[in-house]
């Protein structure tokens, strides 16, 4: 019916199309599973259901809230409206200090306790992640 060339072209196009669809599907699927949402302590408080997925929480480290022992670092993140306790074991970046902005990644234990797996390192003393800026408003 069609020439050999047309058939080959058709085969080629189908192949391209299929691989595009397949990779799009894979990427989107994996994206759904692997995104990490960012929330402020106030947003956590207003959660109806406890989030089971990995989260990021940002805000200020409350003054005089850092407690350290051999295995853990405990502190409180505040957005000046609500606070949340963070339990963390792992490496602490240098710019982590009381009264400074911080972003932690981990899982909610309940609405008051957060088990952090990572404190995100930042590069610059004056720099504050836009998320944190937004979370703590104009303060």
């Amino acid at each position: 019916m069609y020439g050999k060339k047309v058939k080959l072209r058709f085969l080629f196009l189908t192949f391209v199309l299929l691989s595009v669809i397949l990779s799009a599907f894979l990427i989107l699927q994996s994206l759904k599973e692997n995104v990490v949402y960012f929330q402020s302590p106030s947003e956590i408080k207003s959660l109806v259901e406890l989030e089971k997925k990995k989260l990021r929480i940002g805000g200020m480290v409350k003054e005089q809230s850092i407690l350290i022992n051999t295995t853990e670092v405990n502190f409180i993140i505040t957005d000046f409206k609500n606070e949340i306790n963070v339990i963390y074991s792992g490496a602490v970046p240098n710019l982590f200090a009381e009264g400074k902005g911080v972003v932690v990644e981990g899982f909610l234990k309940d609405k008051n306790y957060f088990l952090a797996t990572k404190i995100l390192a930042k590069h610059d003393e004056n720099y504050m992640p836009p998320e944190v800026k937004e979370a703590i408003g104009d303060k």
Partner: protein
Amino acid sequence: MLASQIGYYSLILGLLFSLVLCAVSIKDFNNIYTKINQNIFILSLLQMVFVIVSFLSLVLSFIKSDFSNETVFNNSHTTKPLFYKISGTWGNHEGSLLLWLLVLTLFIFLFLIKSKDQPKKYRILTLLFQQLIIIGFFLFVLITSNPFNYLFPIPKEGLGLNPILQDPALAIHPPILYLGYVGSSIIFSASLAAVTQNYISKEWGKHIKKWVIVSWIFLSIGIMLGSIWAYYELGWGGFWFWDPVENVSLMPWLTLTALLHCVSVLEKRAALTSWVVILSITTFTLSMCGTFLVRSGLLNSVHTFANDPARGIFILIFLFVLIFLSLGIFFLFNNENNKNVKNFFWLSRETSILINNWFMMYFLSVVLIGTVYPIFLDVISAEKISVGPPFYQKLIVPFLAPFLLFMALGPKLKWIKSKLDNKISLIILFIISVILTFILLRNLTSDLLLYTILISSAFFLLFITLKELFIKKFNNISQTTAHLGFSLLILSILFNGILSSEIITNIKVGEKYKHSKGEIFFEKIEEKKQSNFNSIIGYFKITDKNGKIFQLRPELRVYNQPMIITSEADIKTTLLDDKFLVMNLVKGNEYFNIRYQVKPFMLWIWISVLIFSLGGLMSLLKKEHEK
């Protein structure tokens, strides 16, 4: 002060030369001579000289700590060592753009000298397109980011350079990376010029391939330097974090690698013409997008020097103009010469290169979506998300196995139509790789199946390239070297991932920490004063699992200007593994937070990048030699 004036006026002169160059080349384009007007060379040389003068005067202002210059004031300090005063020139937004401009003018001048055997109209058009980019950058520098702004009253002291940028690897990382980025601008201009002249041919492929290889080498090494720096300076204990800023440099590298391969198809068979042009356009667009994302403050990182929306908007507009212009030209002028379209036989070198390109495009889309999606979502729904390393690992790692296998077999095929020779020896090599991998991995990992498949394909590629190198010496040695380097890279990354171990703990001076594989003893701390920082050195005695004792001395630096604490990891590097120790101080506490890591084959990751860049270099030298 004088230096700033000279620098500023040289920039304006450079811009004027751009306009003159355009006028002269348009005039020259239509005349009957077959040679380019000599004035064009002189004008291009002068333009480059003026940009160099401007750049040098900025360097001079930095060396002399001339704080009447705003850029110097913002980014330098009198107590900074001379080396970092100089590297501070491009360690900031304004200076780094001036460096971009410098490389742009340098490359077009080199292009004019190096392309004497090419048709005149094609060369002039390339020059015109390149001047368009150059004018855009001149305007960008002069309007939104003038490096020579004057400050009055003159401050006594500068604000200093971010200390984590005061590092030898990072001092040379930007210039090298820029050579790669900007090299792609020549490929972009040249391919547009070639499209309008209908000159996408074997000769053009041969000529442009050199530029592709040069950019590719610089981009590879530039990315590697950034990665080395992140490894020892940021103290996160890794070399690649899928950070958006790393991703934007990886994306042009992927398209450039794809281009590198399919330009050979063009060179040998005059096929895939449109694809080569599309890749050239994409590579440069991605480089520009990288600059836009990084500079506009949309991505947060150490590269974001200042969040000035005007700059972002300028680059965005410029970017759109370039994209529309190039696509317009492409669709208007590109007529696929149907006589040239040869059907590929399914088993041939061409097909294998197409497969390479397919994989590259897939990797590119993964990285692109992972990088852009969070920004996109933030803009449309104000939801803040981030896409972590698992996303990339899950989507890229499994596909590496078939990719490596094709990479091993592809070069064995001949052009046009081929059959696979020596099937038996290939199968034997493959079986050896699988068995070797299985023996090595048996007790090491829980994910045995995936890693066995991955590592045996990497070994397979390694063995095949080694065999090529040592047995058939006459073969394409540069390509084999590059593939050998890549297989080593994948092997070292995988083994590094499987075998790495990490201990994180909080420890006081004088304490001992015992763990399953040894012991860490924190002996003492010592304080030292340097010109622009005070350092606290920790003395650690580490006993490893074989009972061997060694010392590591990580350092905390408290910089005076700006007041920042940085950690300097102490790393003991051997061919087999890196022992990495970094300590952090939690303010107002007697505990130090330490992170001790054993990272096998770390050195080999850098070596293998150098090996595949060497492959590129060899191919370049061979081309020169043949002439």
